[in-house]
């Protein structure tokens, strides 16, 4: 019961505690308007160069933009605590670390999902991309799974926050890494082999591929393998991120770097 409350109630409260400074003036431009610029930029480059369809760019960039909340917000779950000097207080509570840290990821997943969903709908409307009605529900599922797997990577990023002073740097690097490697704007088949091999192990790659097929008229059954792979990769990152958090916590107690990394 205690763990469940820490997971749900604690997770939501900590999200409010750490992100209450995000007013609509910051939220709307960052999460709702900025992804549209990215979508439009790549869609018009695509139109000019006649490389891929608008649908290709809308789906790739809309799903990839979930990485902004998933990476930055997860990083801030540690970085923000460090900034407010609340990290030592949280870590001196007996709260189980699994519900404590994983619980913080639930609102972040929802945040990433909303960002992707809004960008997908608005980007499609702006560029006149047609998505079959039958694909809407499966796309919602894929967007949720992709936000989950991205948050898994964000959890690894958060763990680094126990070692480095500023997670915004790693968040920016990871965001760019996903943009280049995951087939967001360049099909994996056009990337060098080593890059597409790395992409197979990254969040987003399989989710974006599944979403493109769904929007092209494929059924959920046909993309179940891709969705399953995205989910599995997300789970691996969540487990890896949690293990890294525990390791970094012990290491910071050993090295005395909890407040001064």
């Amino acid at each position, binding site marked *: *019961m*205690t763990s469940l*409350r*820490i997971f749900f*109630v*604690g997770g939501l*409260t*900590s999200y*409010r*505690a*750490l992100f*209450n*400074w995000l007013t609509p003036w910051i939220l709307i431009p960052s999460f709702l308007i900025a992804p549209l610029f990215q979508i439009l930029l790549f869609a018009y480059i695509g139109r000019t160069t006649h490389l891929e369809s608008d649908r290709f760019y809308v789906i790739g960039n809309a799903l990839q933009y979930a990485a902004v909340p998933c990476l930055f917000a997860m990083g801030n779950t540690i970085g923000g605590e460090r900034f*407010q*000097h*609340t990290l*030592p*207080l*949280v*870590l*001196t*509570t*007996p*709260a189980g670390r699994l519900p*404590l840290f994983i619980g913080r990821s639930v609102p972040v997943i929802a945040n990433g999902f909303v960002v992707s969903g809004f960008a997908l709908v608005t980007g499609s409307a702006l560029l006149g991309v047609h998505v079959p009605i039958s694909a809407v529900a499966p796309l919602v599922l894929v967007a949720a799974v992709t936000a989950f797997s991205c948050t898994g990577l964000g959890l690894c990023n958060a763990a680094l926050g126990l070692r480095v002073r500023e997670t915004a740097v790693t968040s920016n690097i990871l965001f760019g890494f996903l943009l280049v490697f995951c087939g967001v704007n360049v099909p994996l088949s056009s990337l060098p082999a080593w890059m597409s091999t790395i992409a197979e192990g990254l969040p987003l790659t399989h989710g974006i591929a599944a979403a493109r097929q769904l929007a092209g008229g494929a059924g959920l059954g046909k993309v179940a393998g891709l969705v399953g792979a995205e989910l599995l990769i997300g789970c691996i990152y969540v487990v890896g991120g949690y293990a890294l958090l525990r390791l970094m916590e*012990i290491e910071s*107690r*050993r*090295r*005395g770097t*909890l407040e001064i990394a």
Partner: protein
Amino acid sequence: MAAIEAEKLRRTYRQTSGFVRRRTKTIEAVRGIDFEVNEGELFGLLGPNGAGKTTTIKMLVTLLIPTSGAARVLGHDVVHSARTVRRNIGYVFGGDRGAYERLSGLDNLRYFSELYGVPPKVQKRRIPELLELVGLMGREKERVEGYSRGMKQRLHIARGLLHDPPVVVLDEPTIGLDPVGARELRNTIAELAQAGKTVLLTTHYMYEADALCDRIAVIAEGEIVAEGTPTALKSVVADRTVVEIEAYGLPAGALERVRASPGVTSVSVEEREHVQLLLVQAPKGLELTQQLLGCLGDVRVGRVAAREPTLEDAYVSLVTGS
């Protein structure tokens, strides 16, 4: 059984500097200290900045792993039974930070109640009780960012008591508070001790330690240099007298001349706004005033007085080794 035990507790830090040629320096923050705090006791850990007080506290509250030695809280090892220790200890540190500024005081307390596993029914009773105890009732729904420093500090105390811990560790809780706020907080600390809690308090305010603590350990450069009741510690300097001299602009070398003056056992200077207060310890019965004024030369002198030594004088004597 002692509530808190430290046995040969030692902690070193490694500091690296330089980019190309990395240099590593090992700093001994705590050098194998031993002390015990009995159940229900209010124990003070006194020392100057950098003496090792906070490092000791961090080891006790499980934030740092000792380099060697051991520490136990209610018999539980702080390394091997960290979670049990955390359940039994309330940790409060001084200063502005340490609360979620954009949440209300009430939400801060609710959140930490969850982390301490306080059931919702108990929270409903406990949180108002604590708000009443620390004098924040009526302000609990306001965001913490609007609280005064004293209110934040009292909120910290309430947070540290949410799970009704038998042991409370207070690391310089009155630092930066105005005199009224500090007095109110000291009253709250005294109430904790009266309620049967074991309290470990670090401070460098002597009157605070003198007024509150049953026993005190003085720590300097990572070692405990004295331990006992405030009265026992004061007896270290009971055979001395303290001469206070207000000087307006001490000239270079004057302090060294005073220090070298026959009969002087210890000298310290308190910088005040336009004046330096020279505190000179000397054996009781020895008349030094004229000799000391001679050492100061032409400097303008204000008030000159001799008085009985206080705990602060004992502390100065202990940490300076004079």
